[in-house]
């Protein structure tokens, strides 16, 4: 693993709620409520959570299209939550995004050539010929035919469009790509294809990914390190192995148990396990979340495994783990 | 809900103030003052100037404005330079006529528009729908005054079914006689005016029904076995009709403000006709007052629409 290229420090994105006669701000929707993690060069970092957890908002904040209420995002020693800093660094040349909905993220009246070339035209100074060559190169990388450049987005299937989206994101040789649920809108068979292209590109160009998804199976395939988000905060983060093998937070356990398994013989056993985990979650919810229902701050359990532990801390959690292992 | 109403009223206040200032500015642009036509032209100009100064015509603008607004609050709209009577009395008689005409027109408008809209929505893409759409297109495309001229020519002059001017016959007597005569004079302009005004409502209603027909809640009702008639009347219709009510305020003020053309064509003695007469006579006091009134009516109409909207919008009601 390489060095850290970006650090997210105590990131907060709040949306004000207005009510009352004078339309004053009475409360906030805490979409992202104090998130800390960092991404290394060339690695894939998974960010998992259900709808409304704040993971997409985090991704958008990192790429610079969401306004940040508090905290910092440090890139090349500069806090890029400020638009002026992003401009100075030509930030988006290095940090790009793949959108979930490939149809809506492309201007329906622009040809593919112009869609892919847009970042190139903004950040690099190429001649028309050089630019066209680069676009062809990119299309090649994602396995699209050359004549795609004259077509419009509506002429392609979902999987093809998503690959074009990948080509656009890779156009300026970025160091980091935020992939916001890139395969959620695709058929299963096409998902594998797109993911493989992404992995191939990563290996060739040493690009880091922030892979945002709600699909644990996909994230397991793609990421080395990952973090799990709930209600705007991280509940657990660490290496893939640590988390899949030793989940500690009850929310993590619940998510993991929900991964569908194709194992017909042991169907009943799996179902019983899921029900047990769900039961445990509902029972212990009050313990694992503070009085306002918010997630506790992360604490280090092992060097590469942080968990949002309740009061009572590490000892109580490890004790519980042991109790579980004994009862298995 | 009262919060919304109150907030709306508060927003209206600065609008009223700016409106009054604009009208005042307009009034100042117009030539003439209280002494035009009242003074013997042979009088010594210095005396005229002294009189004007005494009347406050050389005071700074904000003092004059304040005086004018003060008068307004007392119901004093000024005195007509031309007719030498108070403007309020001039306007009042005419306002009553315009009011009744607008009321009759509104009633007829909705009486026509609602059945038409429902028919078009219910029989979407069939001949009824096409007929209504054609009707809509024609009444929308033709400029109002052309429609009235043709209507008057056909029904008033050629066929002689209706009177061609005035609000009441001079020979009418007795309560019912006068009432009948008034209605008789109003009916043709009201019908023609209404036909032109139906367009927005019909279109909106039709679109509302068409959109609601494919909503999930309708499909659910149908699959529950609810008879089609009930589905249409109870579910679709209710949701489509409510938004129409919101336009009531705007419709009324639109009628009051746009009365100039219809009253001119039919020589109907209302506010609109008064405006045209005043401009012809260069009676600027009356004109200023009328413009102010038209503006206020629009504001009130908008307020009414917003209030009705907030009442019928279930999202606000539940709060």
């Amino acid at each position: 693993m390489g060095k850290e290229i970006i650090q997210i420090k105590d990131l907060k994105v709040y949306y004000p709620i207005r009510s009352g006669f004078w339309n004053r701000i009475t409360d906030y929707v805490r979409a992202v409520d104090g998130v800390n993690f960092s991404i290394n060069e060339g690695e894939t970092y998974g960010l998992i959570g259900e709808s409304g957890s704040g993971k997409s908002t985090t991704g958008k904040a990192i790429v610079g299209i969401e306004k940040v209420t508090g905290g910092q995002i440090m890139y090349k020693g500069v806090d890029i939550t400020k638009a002026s800093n992003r401009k100075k660094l030509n930030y988006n040349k290095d940090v790009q995004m793949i959108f979930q909905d490939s149809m809506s993220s492309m201007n329906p009246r622009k040809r593919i050539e112009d869609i892919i070339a847009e970042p190139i035209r903004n950040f690099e100074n190429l001649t028309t010929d050089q630019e066209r060559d680069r676009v062809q190169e990119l299309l090649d990388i994602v396995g699209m035919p050359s004549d795609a450049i004259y077509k419009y987005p509506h002429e392609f299937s979902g999987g093809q469009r998503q690959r074009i989206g990948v080509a656009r994101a890779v156009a300026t040789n970025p160091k980091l790509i935020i992939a916001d649920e890139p395969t959620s809108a695709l058929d299963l068979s096409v998902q594998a294809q797109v993911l493989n292209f992404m992995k191939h590109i990563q290996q060739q160009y040493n690009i880091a990914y922030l892979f945002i998804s709600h699909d644990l199976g996909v994230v397991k395939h793609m990421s080395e390190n990952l973090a799990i988000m709930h209600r705007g905060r991280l509940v657990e983060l660490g290496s893939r192995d640590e988390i899949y093998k030793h989940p500690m937070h009850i929310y993590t356990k619940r998510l993991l148990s929900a991964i569908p398994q194709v194992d017909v013989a042991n169907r009943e056993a799996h179902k019983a396990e899921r029900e047990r985990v769900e039961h445990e979650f509902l029972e212990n919810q009050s313990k694992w979340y503070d009085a306002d229902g918010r997630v506790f701050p992360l604490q280090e359990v092992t060097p590469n495994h942080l968990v949002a532990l309740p009061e009572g801390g590490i000892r109580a959690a490890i004790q519980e783990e042991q109790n579980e292992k004994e009862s298995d | 809900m009262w919060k919304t109403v109150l907030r709306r009223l508060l927003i209206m206040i600065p609008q009223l103030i700016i409106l009054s200032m604009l009208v005042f500015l307009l009034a100042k642009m117009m030539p003439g003052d209280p002494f035009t036509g009242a003074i013997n032209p042979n009088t010594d100009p210095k005396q005229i100037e002294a009189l004007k100064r005494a009347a406050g015509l050389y005071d700074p603008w904000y003092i004059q404005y304040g005086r004018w607004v003060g008068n307004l609050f007392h119901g004093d709209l000024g005195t007509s330079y031309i007719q030498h009577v108070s403007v309020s009395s001039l306007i009042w008689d005419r306002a009553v006529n315009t009011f009744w005409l607008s009321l009759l027109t509104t009633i007829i408008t909705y009486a026509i528009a609602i059945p038409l809209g429902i028919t078009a929505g219910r029989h979407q893409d069939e001949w009824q729908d096409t007929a209504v759409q054609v009707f809509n297109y024609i009444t929308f495309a033709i400029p109002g005054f052309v429609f009235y001229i043709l209507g008057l020519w056909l029904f008033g002059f050629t066929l002689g079914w209706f009177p061609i001017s005035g609000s009441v016959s001079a020979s009418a007597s007795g309560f019912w006689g006068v009432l009948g005569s008034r209605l008789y004079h109003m009916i043709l302009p009201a019908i023609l005016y209404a036909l032109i005004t139906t367009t927005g409502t019909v279109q909106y209603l039709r679109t509302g029904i068409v959109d609601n027909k494919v909503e999930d809640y309708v499909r659910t009702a149908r699959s529950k076995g609810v008879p089609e008639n009930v589905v249409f009347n109870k579910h679709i219709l209710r949701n489509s009709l409510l938004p129409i009510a919101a336009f009531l305020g705007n419709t009324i003020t639109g009628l009051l403000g746009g009365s100039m053309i219809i009253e001119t064509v039919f020589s109907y003695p209302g506010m609109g006709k008064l405006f045209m007469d005043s401009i012809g006579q260069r009676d600027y006091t009356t004109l200023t007052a009328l413009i102010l009134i038209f503006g206020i009516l629009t504001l009130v109409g908008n307020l009414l629409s917003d209030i009705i909207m907030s009442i019928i919008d279930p999202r606000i009601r539940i709060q």
Partner: protein
Amino acid sequence: MAKKTKKQNDAVKDDQTKVSLPPSGFKVIVREIVKDKVALAAFILIVLILIFTFGGSLFLSKSSVSEINIVESYYGWGQNGHLFGTDDGGRDILNMLIMGGRNSILIGISVTVITELVGLVVGLVAGYYGGLIDSIIMRIVDFIQILPRFPIIIVLTTVLSHYNAVTLVWLIAMFGWTVTARYFRSFVLSQRERDYVLASKTSGSSDLKIMFREVLPNITSMIIIDVVLSIAGNIGVETSLSFLGYGLPPTTPSLGSLIAFANDPVNVINRPWLWLPATILLLIISLSVNYVGRALQRAGDARQREN
């Protein structure tokens, strides 16, 4: 994966003949008009009227049309070489019809050009930037829409000095831009949070660039439709004002002032040649332009649904 050779790239460049159509492009809209037979008929009518009015006006001079010649007054249909007779001042009705038609159409178009341009810029700015700018602009728009249009315009036509047709255009446009501004603003608002705008931002495009290069082209078909319907509406406004007597100056012929002859009952009964031709011409213009606009609107809606 091998890199493409230059030859292959050139082959693609030459393949321009297989170019595909953008959704809801201008050519597609034109094709829709041709398909709808009635719209085509309406369009041809409009062209004929334009030739009649604009072409005919080339042979006339304003002074000759409005010159008063008492000797010739009140001739009827086809009398004394006047196809549509003359009015009380001896002016030939047919000539006034040609010139008045041209004037009314020209004013309708001029007002529309101004209102569309101003409304477009204002709507784009208000819709895209939102926030304080949007609030301020919308307050102004709200207020102007409250003002009683016709009364104010009428008063101003009598009060302003050096009043002519150009002044009238500006007066009407002064109120008209608010409607188009609202219309375009609502469209921009619907597009603003769309992913492709965000994607453009991520690709490094500036706000201005996004507004004009990305959002604007999607509005083109809307603009075309609005322009057509707007022209019809503005012709109606000018003729209404002239009908009341406070539109174009009395020396400039207009369809409205011709129709105004019908205000006198004597003319209605005894001298229909004064006002009937103008009424019919205005009727045809209004119906045709509106029909074409409606047809375009239907075509536009169908396209949007397809997408």
